[in-house]
């Protein structure tokens, strides 16, 4: 169906929506980060995600499609009237892995929130974004302002390639969370150049 817009509409293409995912283990600060930079009260929503099997859609009335409902945090940053960043805080558990494709579709990149005390919690997210070739940064949430390990050590522990930025942040602070997003966008640009050079 053609998109039919009225004259006073500026058209569907006038809004460029940027999707950024915020992943990581339970309690790593995903909700806090989304909340500190979002211009709207973050929406805690539930989304039904389906296993990516479009074929099943055509089997009318056959209820074999597996779906699950996950809680998601949603935030919004309007950069310009026609350029809006959407943040999706997504569950990091590995059991949701196969459903992330819905969320990751078209994403600019991802922030993986890490809690130093439970670094292993972000392995699934790191694995996923690496496998999908989606640019990501790791944000080490320093709850108490203290860092136990150097960022380098964390990068090694997560077995990251050298180009993946690891940043310390305080997700409660707006500027700090913003800096994480800026680092992600810059990393995406660097990746872009890297690909062209390759």
């Amino acid at each position, binding site marked *: *169906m*053609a*998109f*039919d*817009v*009225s004259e*006073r*509409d*500026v*058209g*569907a*293409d006038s*809004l*460029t*929506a*940027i*999707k950024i995912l915020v992943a990581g283990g339970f309690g790593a600060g995903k909700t806090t980060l989304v909340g500190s*930079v979002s211009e*709207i009260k973050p*929406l805690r*929503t*539930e*989304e*039904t995600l*389906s296993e990516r099997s479009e074929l099943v*859609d055509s089997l009318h009335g056959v209820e074999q499609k597996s779906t699950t409902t996950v809680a998601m945090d*949603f935030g*919004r*940053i309007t*950069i*310009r009237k026609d*350029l*809006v*960043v*959407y943040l*999706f805080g997504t569950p990091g558990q590995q059991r949701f892995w196969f459903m992330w494709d*819905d969320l990751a*579709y*078209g*994403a*600019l*990149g991802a922030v993986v929130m890490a809690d130093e005390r439970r670094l292993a919690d972000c392995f699934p997210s790191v694995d996923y974004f690496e496998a999908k070739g989606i*640019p990501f940064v790791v944000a080490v949430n320093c709850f108490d302002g203290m860092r136990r390990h150097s960022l380098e050590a964390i990068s090694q522990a997560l077995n990251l390639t050298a180009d993946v930025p690891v940043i310390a942040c305080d997700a409660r602070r*707006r500027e700090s969370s*913003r800096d994480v*997003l*800026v680092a992600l*966008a*810059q990393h*995406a*640009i660097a*990746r*872009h150049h890297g690909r062209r050079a390759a």
Partner: protein
Amino acid sequence: MQPFDPEWLDQEAGPVVRPYALTGGLTRPTGQRFDLLDMVGVVRRATQDKQQLAPEQAEVLERCQIPAPLIDLAADLDLPVGVIRILVSDLRERGLVAIHRAQPVGFGDLKILQEVVDGLRRI
């Protein structure tokens, strides 16, 4: 019958109406599935009588006079995403709205990425 006890029906009580009451009993969307960032816009020449719409559907129509992403409808109208999906798919079946697939910007568009960097720095 006792009148409602205000003690149980304050702001903290949350919604007292079950979601399916807002969707005419529908519990799942129909037709092609859409993404949270897909744009929903009103169809200009729609002739259907809008009087038959539920208030929430009328609100959705009003809100997407200028096309808006599905997730914005949920946020701005304060309705669960699942409910919005159903309301929108029903409106689409009635020919009142059209869905425009979101084109992924991804990380391929250098110009937009730079605008995002600059824009984020200003917030």
